[in-house]
């Protein structure tokens, strides 16, 4: 019998432009074993938060993810507000909700493009990213930046929506709705797309629960798990939310859930604009946050996002823990990949809409034979790489790397 082939996919650019290594064992073309290796991009953000004040942390937390930056800062703000015993104004809650739904629009449109790209349907990538650009423009006008909007502050939001902005958001919502109708039709009628995405990356209802999958991955397996419905935050207690589910339980199902969610988000944005309460946008919060600990959950475009914040009564947090949505979805990945063909690996990985660096933590290497554990820090890793190149005749030690005094 032929020997099984082991192929490492990554850590450079495995399907998405972030580092992770998937060690795939093949029998012929079929995946019989998959090992998910993340941890290449540990940035130490949680630790960095503990060294700075709550206000400074806002901007670190916003950089946990480059796509769902708003939901992370919303979660963190909510945690600090809860600790401080402050309730934000309704207007601020509505503005946070509008931002969150606009963010979901841009995130899902981005994903649709990536999914198209992974299956060789680049025309779809061009169109959906063109439409996403409109959403980014309105996010920039509202927050002040395309990616790190910086609209949240502890106690509310930093910027109000003006009547002109409301008009601009409405216009973008109309265009996105119109274009998305076409994408829904396309997803449901283009047989090549359905044939390519259907039946791969299966994660059944029971498995989704067993592996703790979240967001569109679990909803595509008919698990009606949506924090906006089950544990409403911001203005979701007033805004009507329908958790979109599907019964395909595969990559196609995840596509359907996301395109239908775009329609839901458009509806929610319109509701928020129609019912935007008057009032202040920010409530004063003291710099020193009372002692205590809190866990807050929100629904990011990729699923449930959870932040744990502990305060010791000073202006700096004692502990910050971020559980981004992708971290929950990695656990089922091995199961989703096994049994499928090698050619389907990139799209199956991309279908959970993963964020690698959001989920990366320090790696501890376990020696299976001796049971020894080791952790390599940045400096020794650099030394190792210099030596690695040196024995191969290349001297990289002259390359200067700017050390940030804050980190090193």
């Amino acid at each position, binding site marked *: 019998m032929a020997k099984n082939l082991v192929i490492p996919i990554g850590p450079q650019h495995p399907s998405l432009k972030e580092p992770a290594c998937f060690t795939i064992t093949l029998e012929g073309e079929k995946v019989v074993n998959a090992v998910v290796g993340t941890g290449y991009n540990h940035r130490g953000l949680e630790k960095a938060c503990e060294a*700075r*004040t709550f*206000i*400074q*942390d*806002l*901007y*670190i937390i916003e950089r946990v993810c480059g796509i769902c930056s708003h939901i992370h800062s919303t979660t963190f703000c909510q945690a600090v507000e809860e600790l401080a015993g402050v309730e934000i104004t309704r207007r601020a809650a509505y503005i946070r909700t509008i931002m969150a739904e606009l963010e979901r629009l841009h995130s899902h449109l981005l994903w649709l493009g990536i999914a198209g790209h992974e299956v060789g*349907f680049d*025309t*779809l990538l061009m*169109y959906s990213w*063109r439409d996403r*650009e409109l959403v980014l*423009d309105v996010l*920039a*006008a*509202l927050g*002040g*930046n395309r990616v*790190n909007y*910086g609209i949240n*502050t502890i106690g509310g939001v*930093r*910027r109000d929506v003006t009547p002109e902005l409301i008009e601009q958001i409405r216009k973008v919502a109309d265009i996105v709705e119109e274009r998305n109708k*076409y994408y829904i*039709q*396309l997803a449901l*009628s*283009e*047989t*090549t797309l359905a044939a390519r995405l259907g039946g791969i990356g299966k994660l059944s209802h029971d498995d989704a629960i067993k592996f703790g999958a979240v967001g569109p991955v679990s909803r595509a397996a008919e698990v009606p798990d949506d924090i906006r419905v089950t544990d409403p935050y911001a203005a979701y207690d007033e805004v009507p939310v329908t958790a979109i589910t599907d019964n395909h339980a595969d990559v196609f199902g995840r596509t359907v859930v996301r395109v239908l969610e775009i329609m839901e988000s458009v509806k929610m944005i319109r509701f928020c604009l129609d019912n935007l309460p008057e009032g202040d946008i920010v409530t004063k919060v003291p710099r020193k946050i009372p002692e205590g600990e809190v866990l807050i959950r929100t629904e990011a475009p990729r699923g449930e996002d959870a932040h744990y914040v502990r305060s010791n009564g000073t202006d700096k947090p004692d502990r910050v823990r971020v559980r981004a949505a992708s971290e929950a979805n990695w656990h089922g990945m091995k199961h989703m990949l096994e049994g499928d063909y090698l050619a389907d690996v990139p799209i199956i990985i991309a279908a959970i809409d993963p964020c690698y660096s959001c989920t990366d933590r320090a790696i501890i290497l376990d020696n299976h034979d001796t049971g020894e554990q080791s952790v390599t820090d940045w400096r020794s890793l650099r030394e190792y790489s210099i030596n690695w190149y040196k024995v191969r005749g290349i001297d990289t030690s002259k390359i200067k790397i*700017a050390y940030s005094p*804050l980190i090193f």
Partner: protein
Amino acid sequence: MRKGPGKITGEALRHVFAKPATISYPAGELVIDKNYRGRINFDASKCIGCKLCVRDCPANAITIDNLGTKEEKKMQLTLNYAHCIFCCQCVDSCNKDAISFEPNIELAGTSRKDMIVKL
């Protein structure tokens, strides 16, 4: 829409004759929203030297110095643009409106030294 392959062909053909969705940059004009956070400006006459901006800056990009005397202040803000993340928390933190921003994002330089500016 009938089921079948090639469903996007019509749309794709239509786009052959459509105007490009991209803007021409740097050849064309950069259209940017007036609320976009860019270049930081400083009004020394309004600054009282409380250093709230320094304290809240997440990137440690600001230094405030008094070049004058205690009575006759001459405040100077030194900004390290290479560290600044354009969050504008300094603008929010300043109670005296001494710091403001403008939607100017064309701030690239070729040396790290050039990125440290005295305002």
